[in-house]
């Protein structure tokens, strides 16, 4: 469960004020709004990349407002994937587990499981520069899911993809939700994408949140 209580964040001259919402456990919330309306600011506040001015962030009922991003246990997929350019796909998928000093055999099994789920088994020994846009986003999604997070934050993950790949990725996200039950916050400005995935759909307009 993700819960925001009266969240206020200042980012330079821009601010979002008094935002509150709850995404139930296993929910797939799509947050929509125009470019620059503050969607990403909310998402980054939840992950822990931004200092908040007021309010509380609760994950699974625990107040994590002052927690370090590393301790919040949130899987994060940014717009262009932000893959680690010097690591193979295999290393990216095992990265979070190796940080946690998990046994190599467990990392291997988890990597194979994720690769099968996301259809990237044939890409495991490739580096990011040789991947297409869709493949990169699949790897980024796998990397974010690798440590079995309770919460997944996606920041316009499909915006750079062509329409066909976007549809495939939408289907994949539905499948991931069904298989993992992860609570997801998906930021986008694409209505079609939002209608396919949202449960619930929030609109951010003039700093105010509306639930559709």
């Amino acid at each position, binding site marked *: 469960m993700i819960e925001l209580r009266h969240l206020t964040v200042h980012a330079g001259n821009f601010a979002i004020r008094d935002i509150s919402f709850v995404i139930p456990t296993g929910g797939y919330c799509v947050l929509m709004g125009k470019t620059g309306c503050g969607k990403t600011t909310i998402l980054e506040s939840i*992950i*822990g*990349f931004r200092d908040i001015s007021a309010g509380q962030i609760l994950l699974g009922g625990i107040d994590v407002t002052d927690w*370090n*991003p*590393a301790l*919040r246990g*949130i*899987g*994060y997929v*940014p717009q*262009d994937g*932000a*893959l*680690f*350019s*010097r690591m193979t796909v295999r290393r990216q998928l095992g*990265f*979070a587990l190796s*940080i*946690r000093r998990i046994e190599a055999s467990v990392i291997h099994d988890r990597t194979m499981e994720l690769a099968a789920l996301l259809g990237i088994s044939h890409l495991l020994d490739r580096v*990011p*520069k*040789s*991947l297409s846009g869709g493949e*990169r986003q699949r790897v*980024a999604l796998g*990397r*974010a899911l*690798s*440590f079995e997070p309770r919460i997944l934050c996606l920041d316009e993950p499909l915006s750079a993809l062509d329409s066909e790949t976007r549809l495939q990725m939408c289907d994949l996200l539905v499948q991931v939700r069904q298989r993992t039950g992860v609570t997801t916050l998906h930021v986008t400005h694409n209505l079609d994408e939002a209608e396919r995935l949202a449960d619930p759909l929030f609109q951010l307009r003039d700093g105010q949140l509306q639930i559709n």
Partner: protein
Amino acid sequence: MSEPSSTLGAPRDRVAMAISDRCFIACMSIIGGVYVALIAGMLIADVIYMIRQSASAASGQEGWSAYIVNSPIVDALRDPKIRYSIRLSLISCTLSAILSVFVAVPLGYLMSRVRFPGRTLLDAFLDIPIVLPPLVVGLSLLILFQFPPFSWFARSIVYQIPAVILAQFAVACAFSVRTMKATFDQIDPRCEQVARSLGCSRFQAFSLVVFPEADRGMVTAFTLAWARSLGEFGPLLIFAGSTRMKTEVLSTSVFLEMNVGNLEAAVSVSLIMVAGAVVVLVLTRMLGVSATDPYVTKPGRAPHSAQAIGSEP
């Protein structure tokens, strides 16, 4: 049906446009070419001078080997003082370049990633060694070592070999910091954010994700610092002195040989330095070009700073 004609959208005279375009490129080429010719002319003049001196020394002897044996460069390489100077230059430049990168990595990273009050001021402050007259850098170092705690070590540093390294480092490091800041600026900060969301501490995100992506930038920073150190002269003269077989590096050798009127040896040492600088430049360019990456941000690609190469004052 004929298309409606438009006077507003009609292109200008095609011939005039083509002439204008060619003139533009020609003017640019002429202005730029003057400088390229100046650089090439300087190097060619040195080489021709050397060949002439070799020819006059080898007069009466047959074969190319006579030219080589009697070349002032070979004479210079035989001279123990020049050999000492080459050895000290190689060691001091390498040490100052290592020190420069060691300092430039954290400083460049902080300047690139952390926002703090006075950051713009510090950014300008870091350029001081670049814009300050080189002699002033040396003089300032000399004055600094009159005050504690530096004065405690003055006897073993000032006018000694460590002064050579410190004087080279003081200027070269500023170039390395610029290079490393540009390198970190070009590495997508979101990679680091993702690493932190995956469970990394800041140090782990830096060492496991950012640092490997900055490798080419570090090589560039190292080579630029090395080449800058090789050309350093003003601060060395003031802070380390120009004692033969003690604090003499290649730039000092040129100065000392010129002082005793030995132009041949001065040009010979200059050509040895040119060869060193060319090797470093070629290495930097090769490593920079090979970093092309079409999909992700271009990690570790640092801008090439031509101004970092060259002797002064």
